């Protein structure tokens, strides 16, 4: 195991920074503040200048890339297939709907996920956490939403894993999601968490969403009706994409 540098802050110092960031946060923010000191890597990676507001109903960003059957193989949505054997861990189904802020479904768009294996390790060279790699788990998948905006993946429940933000820093178990809407303005990368994780309160990435109600929207719900007997546990997570879309593309 690699010992973090002695200059790394303690969890207590990070907890205090989280309290301070909560205190100074604007009311009811929907998204993380890019300048979020408890997540130390954000320090040099956020703009200091305000964003340039643009109001243009014909902006390029109000359209976006499209994907189709040629972009996704039918096996891509099952992360437990394609290798020699069954991956270790608890098999789960994750499903939900992708809608825009008006509640309209986002049909036939690309959803991509990636995650650590059941032991909390990514199939990535830079992940040096001494947990076992799983030769039977790819760790990434993709699918298209259906006409109703629904997506579904079969995978295994990922493990929590340590990271170097501070001493004894652990990420709560999560699945990374990448989503496209009908417009490039709706492009979204986020993370889905599992209900009741005791690590939530310690994690600066989740806590960067300072509003509790907004944080709750990142947590899937266990759905017993989605669980399959003798096979898998079901989780439901619906996603609401932000950002304007062009009225020109509403009916596309």
């Amino acid at each position, binding site marked *: 195991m690699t010992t973090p540098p002695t200059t790394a802050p303690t969890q207590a110092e990070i907890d205090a920074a989280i309290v301070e960031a909560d205190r100074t946060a604007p009311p009811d923010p929907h*998204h*993380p*503040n*890019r300048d*979020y000191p408890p*997540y130390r*890597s*954000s*320090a*040099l*990676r*956020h703009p*200091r*200048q305000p*964003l*340039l*507001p*643009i109001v243009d109903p*014909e902006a*390029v960003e*109000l*359209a976006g*890339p*499209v*994907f*189709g059957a*040629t*972009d*996704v*193989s039918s*096996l891509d949505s099952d992360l437990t297939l*394609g290798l020699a054997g069954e991956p270790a861990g608890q098999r789960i189904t994750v499903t939900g709907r992708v*809608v825009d*802020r*008006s*509640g309209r479904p986002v049909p036939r768009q690309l959803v*991509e996920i*990636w995650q650590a294996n059941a032991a909390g390790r*990514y*199939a*990535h060279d830079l*992940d040096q956490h001494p947990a076992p790699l799983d030769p039977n788990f790819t*760790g*990434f998948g993709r699918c298209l939403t259906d006409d109703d905006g629904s997506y579904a993946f079969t995978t295994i429940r990922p493990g929590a894993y340590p990271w170097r933000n501070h001493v004894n820093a652990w990420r709560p178990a999560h699945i*990374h999601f*990448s989503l496209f809407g009908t417009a*490039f303005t709706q*492009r*979204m*990368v*986020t993370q889905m968490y599992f209900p009741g994780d005791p690590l939530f309160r310690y994690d600066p*990435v*989740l806590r*960067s*969403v300072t509003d509790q*109600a*907004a944080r709750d*929207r990142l947590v899937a719900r266990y759905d017993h009706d989605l669980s399959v007997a003798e096979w898998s546990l079901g989780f439901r997570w619906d996603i609401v*994409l*932000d950002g304007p879309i062009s009225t020109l593309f509403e009916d596309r």
Partner: protein
Amino acid sequence: MSLPPTPAQTVGPFFGYALPFTGGGDIAEGPESITVHGLVLDGAGDPVPDALVEIWQADRDGSLTGAPGSLRHDQVTGEVIGRHGLDFTGFGRVPTDADGHWAVRTVAPGPHRPGATPYLAVAVFARGLLHHLHTRIYLPDHADALRADFPDTGADRLATLLATRERDRRYRFDIRLQGDRETIFVDLR
């Protein structure tokens, strides 16, 4: 009805085996293609080796309809083999390398409506960046039109949206997340 949105989260450090795809930077190739490339830099001026750059743009005729097939896959192996080069998908995706460098091969976009100033729309994701950023790449031919489009923004700042011509058909565009010459990031309303 306005539903509260799902919050964004950082792409993290480990997207490299999931999001980049074969031919992700080859948006268009051929005699008319151009290369656009550059670095992603942090507030200390250091390269960012774990960023992801996405491009969305109009075709040379200004068309924004795009086409599916950026991630075309082999039906036998399931591997992504990339676009077939006939349809223009308008979408590119490249991770930065260990030096913080990225590059795409594409065509110069046309005006997306009569009189519009063409540009490449960019989304930037990175470890340490909690919510991705949008910016735009304008080619140097359109420098005057860019200044006319944003009369209230200083020329110094606007210059961060201009690619520079390095030689014929090759343009440089660095993305500075913070600090001196910080890139303009845009917020579409």
